[in-house]
């Protein structure tokens, strides 16, 4: 109980200190009213329990951990299970490469790193009060946030800068939620009594907003998937399968199938298609659709011939960032820090999203941006293994640095041509030691945070110190590439990529090594030789005709 009071206090202090998170965005400070209901509709569950009837939940809760305490009084193992999941640990030891990855470790091409920016980044932690990445997440069993995944009232949320805590009473005007909305006071009892299996909105409130905003990071995960139309996502659309995330990302003991660090590019281990929700350990298309998903007709057979080389996603996700929400495709940190004529941080909004919303293209806090909607993916061979360029890894600054490297080999049998979002960036690195640096960007009260002080030198030094990585004290900016496997926003079959989009000169897979693609090169040597043969025949015929005309004879005209 002592811990509960402490965390509640800590949450309050953090909320007070945090201030507006999108400080550079011109927002009118406001306290919103809570949403009426969840942003996605799920099928009625088959639960035999109505949590609103539980006496234990009919009380005034004053903090998130208090609700968790009530949950685990019945669900005795839940907290322990969650604490062993990547959602809580933010750490992942890669089984192939041995690299220790996870949000607590990696550097990305977006906001950079969690360490040094904790309370802001850990606002999306599936727990409460993780304020230091150098420590493991809080180990009290009440530190798990049950509601962020299980609330079905739609009004549970987390404060953008609250290290995982929800906004409660007396929300300070200007406070934001993790989705960037104006915060409202969460009614914890209402949330606790509403619990059920997660809807798309539960997962989406964090995963759709990675990188600091709607669809910024992934490209194929955006608020468009709360209630998508069929053509945006055939599985998740209420007019289609109305899948929740966990329909594919099947869980066992709060561990989910489907990892971005160690992707199962294929699932050839069974020959029978599985039904949605049926037990399996991986979340691939093939898990449900098998390796021969097309009908057994002449077209279907030819399409099935592709599955040994081409991932399902490559044809069935013709573009990402569909459904009216743009994704960031370019982020140049090196230009950050410009002030306008009044000495205020410069902000530009020069990208108009298809819904008319103006998106920022320059922020003094973050630099220059480019956005894209309906973006054609980048394609590459991929066996599912991803290696990261971590803080201590040597880089070659003379060329673009791959923040993550996707592994694949056309001839290994398990690689497929996959679609990716290719994020192009320019980010800070140590010019003497040649490695990417950790930056301390968020910290409203520190004199080192970049978003508060606009001083890279201090921000990098503080970030490196927080990460405990050696830093020479000299920095520059290097071009970076980062690859995000695209696997959501599957279009209906008739909107899949058409054959000719790849089977053509300058097609989508132009230059792809290790695969023979008919229709892409009619002017190869055989094509030239063939044309010469035909031209020779034509020339011969024309010459013969000419001589016949010139000689005035049709030839053997005795028979007419």
């Amino acid at each position, binding site marked *: 109980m002592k811990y509960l009071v402490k965390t509640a206090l800590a949450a309050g202090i953090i909320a007070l200190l945090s201030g507006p998170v999108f400080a550079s965005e011109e927002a009118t400070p406001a306290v919103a009213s809570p949403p009426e209901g969840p942003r996605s509709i799920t099928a009625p569950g088959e639960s035999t329990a109505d949590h609103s009837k539980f006496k234990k939940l009919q009380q005034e809760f004053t903090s998130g951990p208090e609700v968790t305490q009530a949950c685990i009084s019945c669900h005795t193992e839940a907290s322990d299970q969650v604490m062993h999941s990547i959602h809580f640990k933010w750490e992942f030891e890669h089984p192939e490469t041995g690299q220790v990855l996870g949000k607590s470790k990696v550097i990305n091409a977006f906001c950079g790193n969690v360490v040094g920016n904790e309370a802001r980044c850990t606002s999306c932690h599936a727990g409460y009060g993780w304020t230091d990445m150098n420590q493991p997440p809080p180990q009290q069993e009440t530190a798990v946030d049950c509601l962020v995944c299980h609330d079905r009232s739609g009004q549970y949320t987390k404060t953008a800068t609250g290290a995982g805590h929800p906004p409660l009473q007396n929300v300070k005007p200007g406070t934001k939620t993790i989705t960037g909305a104006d915060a409202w006071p969460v009614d914890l009892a209402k949330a606790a009594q509403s619990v059920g299996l997660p809807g798309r909105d539960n997962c989406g409130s964090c995963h759709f907003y990675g990188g600091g905003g709607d669809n910024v990071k992934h490209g194929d995960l955006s608020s468009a998937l709360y209630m998508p139309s069929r053509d945006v996502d055939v599985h998740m659309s209420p007019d289609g399968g109305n899948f929740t995330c966990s329909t594919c990302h099947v869980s066992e003991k709060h561990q989910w199938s489907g990892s971005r660090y160690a992707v199962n590019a294929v699932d050839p281990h069974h020959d029978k298609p599985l039904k949605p929700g049926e037990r399996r350990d991986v979340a691939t298309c093939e898990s449900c659709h098998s390796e021969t998903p097309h009908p057994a007709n*002449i077209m279907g057979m030819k399409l099935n011939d592709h599955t040994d080389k081409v991932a399902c996603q490559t044809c069935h996700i013709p573009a990402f960032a569909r459904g009216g929400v743009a994704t960031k495709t370019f982020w140049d940190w090196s230009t950050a820090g410009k002030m306008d004529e009044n000495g205020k941080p410069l902000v530009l909004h020069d990208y108009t999203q298809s819904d008319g919303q103006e998106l920022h293209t320059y922020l003094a806090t973050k630099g220059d941006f480019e956005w894209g909607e309906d973006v054609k993916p980048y394609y590459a061979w991929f066996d599912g293994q991803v290696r990261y360029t971590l803080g201590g890894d040597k880089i070659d600054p003379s060329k673009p640095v791959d923040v993550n490297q996707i592994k694949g080999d056309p001839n290994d049998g398990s690689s497929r041509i996959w679609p990716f979002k290719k994020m192009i960036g320019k980010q800070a690195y140590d010019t003497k030691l040649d490695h990417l640096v950790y930056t301390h960007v968020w910290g409203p009260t520190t004199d080192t945070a970049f978003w508060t002080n606009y001083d890279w030198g201090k921000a990098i030094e503080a970030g490196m110190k927080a990460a405990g990585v050696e830093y020479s004290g000299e920095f520059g900016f290097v071009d970076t590439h980062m690859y995000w496997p695209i696997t959501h926003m599957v279009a209906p079959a008739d909107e899949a990529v058409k054959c000719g989009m790849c089977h*053509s000169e300058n097609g989508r897979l132009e230059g792809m090594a290790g695969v023979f693609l008919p229709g892409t090169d*009619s002017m190869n040597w055989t094509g030239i030789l*063939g044309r010469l043969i035909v031209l020779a025949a034509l020339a011969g015929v024309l010459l013969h005709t000419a001589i016949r005309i010139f000689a005035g004879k*049709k030839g053997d005209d005795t028979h007419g």
Partner: protein
Amino acid sequence: MAKRCVKVYPRFERLWHWSQVVLIVVLMFTGFGINGLHHTLHFGPAVMLHTIAALALLVLWIFATFWLFTTGTWRQFIPSMEGMMQVALFYAWGVFQGKKHPYKKVLLRKHNPLQAATYFGLKWFVFPAIWSTGLLYLTYNWWGASVSEPSFALWVVANLHLLSAYVIAAFVIVHVYLLTVGHGFRAHVRPMVTGYDEVELTAEEEAYLAADEPWRLKPQKS
């Protein structure tokens, strides 16, 4: 010796020929579309049409082969050097001087030696090359995994298929052109439509046909 109007192309052979014409035209058009030579068709439908036409042509060829061997017509296609030079010289020289075609159609040889040699080459080399590579192309996934460099193997198969197609295209051009030489286009096409052509018959042949295959002889206008 008498010149008689004899049925040289029975109904099946004419059906075979004209079905083959239609299918080869479809195959050429779709095939060169798939290859990227022209863009009048979408790739997917072109592949489907190409596959269906190819399978139809293979079925036709199976029937034709059966017919050739059961009827003995295959002998018509055995190449022979006899008279080859004269025919070649005619096309190269004589035709310009209005000379007569040196080859006289006889009952057992409806093709001139150059024709027979060409068809021999087509039937024994070019057609087998195109259908075997076509079948390999179509069934790539059945054998791809068992070769060491599947993409290279498929590249070889595809290029041989394409080269054969160009050779056939050249054949079609010359074949159609040669119809205009000699008796004239209409006269040359007519036998493949009606089945009848003028053939020099020996007295024995004429007597045999009159007695045993009277339907092959057109009654003489007298």
